[in-house]
């Protein structure tokens, strides 16, 4: 049994890391995160190793396939299976991307929703439907994006804020995405962070990205976190407060010992901004 309250610094659980983590979890890693789609209905050696790890360590689920902004109805069969999975692994927090990944079929990657009032109403309604089926509040993540739609009626920040407000859900703040988008779409990331509805933030992501050119960064999660993004995390903790924060690494996955210093750096930044030495506990909807 483990405490369902989530705190501290976490690491994205990738298959490549399982042998090392099974041998021993470094103390600085307080929780793991997975895409539930990668582990639902998983048997065999992989399924067994996964269950052994999550029995001892809290697990956040960060979805990939729900397609909150997609044009076809939400997959309710999938959502009901997801609810069982979240319950079986006592998952304290489920988050999804504020984007879409399907048309009439799955496309397995994230695309941007145009920032229009009509889209706000549409997506907020789907988040509410998701929350009803899962019987819990969810968090949505500010997604990275590369193209601006000519239909946009508002800024990215206005869109994110309006959706969260209308859906009455939480914000999963991806600091690397704020940085990537600020470069790709030429805005001031600190101004963005100052405008984020701080009271809605429950969870933070950190990651590396691919530098294609000075005006185009691609959110690959395939490299170490760069200094400007570390500075933004520092700024985020100052402005918004300390929240459970995860290091994502999905490609070019190095040995565990090379990722642990990045997780430790998150944890030490958290310590700096905590009012006292007590760990910051965020009690979420695990048992609601």
């Amino acid at each position, binding site marked *: 049994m483990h405490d369902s309250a989530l705190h501290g610094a976490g690491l994205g659980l990738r298959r490549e890391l399982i042998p090392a983590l099974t041998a021993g979890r470094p103390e600085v890693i307080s929780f793991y995160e997975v895409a539930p789609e990668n582990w639902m209905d998983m048997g*065999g050696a992989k399924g067994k190793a996964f269950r052994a790890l999550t029995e001892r360590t809290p697990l956040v689920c960060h979805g990939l396939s729900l397609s909150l902004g997609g044009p076809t109805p939400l997959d309710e069969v999938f959502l009901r299976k997801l609810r069982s999975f979240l319950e079986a692994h006592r998952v304290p927090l489920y988050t999804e991307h504020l984007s879409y990944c399907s048309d009439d079929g799955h496309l397995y990657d994230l695309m941007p929703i145009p920032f229009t009032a009509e889209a706000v109403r549409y997506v907020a309604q789907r988040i509410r439907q998701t929350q009803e089926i899962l019987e819990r509040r969810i968090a949505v993540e500010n997604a990275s994006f590369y193209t601006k739609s000519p239909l946009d009626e508002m800024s990215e920040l206005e869109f994110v804020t309006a959706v969260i407000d209308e859906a009455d859900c939480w914000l999963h703040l991806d600091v690397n995405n704020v940085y990537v988008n600020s470069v790709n779409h030429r805005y001031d990331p600190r101004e963005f962070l100052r405008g984020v509805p701080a009271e809605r933030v429950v969870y933070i992501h950190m990651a590396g990205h691919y530098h294609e050119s000075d005006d185009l960064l691609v959110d690959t999660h395939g490299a170490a976190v760069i200094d400007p993004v570390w500075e933004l995390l520092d700024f985020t903790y100052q402005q918004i407060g300390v929240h459970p924060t995860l290091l994502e690494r999905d490609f070019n996955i190095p040995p565990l010992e090379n990722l642990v210093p990045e997780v430790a750096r998150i944890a030490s930044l958290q310590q700096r901004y905590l009012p006292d030495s007590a760990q910051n506990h965020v009690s979420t909807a695990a048992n609601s």
Partner: protein
Amino acid sequence: MSAQQPTPEFQDYQRAFTRHIRDPKQHPRPAGVTARRMKVYNDLLFNNVFNLISSCFPVAHSVLGKRKWRQLVREFFATHRCRSPYFRQVPEEFLQFMQQRDSGGREPDFLIYLLHYEWVELALDISTKEIDANAIDPTGDLVAGRPVLTPSHMLLSYPYAVHRIGKRYQPTPAQQEQTYLLVFRDREDTVRFVVLNPVSARLLALIEPGTLTGNQALAQVVEELQHPDPAVALAGGQAILEDLRKAGAFLGTFRPDRNSPIQPA
């Protein structure tokens, strides 16, 4: 949205966006989107699906060659609509697409069998079929009792020797060889392939449902074969069963008065 209402404008844009990503040659990118930024999505989405599929089918990939393989995945990406939310099931979606597609002789006749054979390893690797261990006697007599195959297994037959296909062996329809395979996940969760002769394949097919004892299945095979020396045939069959137990394909025998212990997880 009710059927009478027009599609919201933002969804028209989303549809144009994905149409272009799926098939950039047929569908222009949405108006107002720059080419360089659009290309980020074209590359990210296609490459992701290409890699998910290619990693499951290394032999088919190498047999067809890079160009032809890429064309096939392109055709899949443009025309197929994946139903599964699970990334690991994209290879299965590709397999279904290939099985339903009229190849018109553009690819080797053996290709769909080879694709199936390569997909089986992935499917069994992550199969969730479980078995009630209490229903099984691991030391049970495989002849007197009803033998139990490990739940994550497939008994397969192909018109080609799919396990030998590679760059150097690419059989034509004239070189078909009916091939029987038992593929199973053993106790250490490793997926193993055993090539069967037609008699062993028939024997396992009779045993698979779990209703016959080893002896009953063997007797039926001997009768079907009209074997001149039933005693020799029975001894041979018994040896096959024991070999497969050693390899991990049989878990043992059903304990008496237990039926159908295989349950989906």
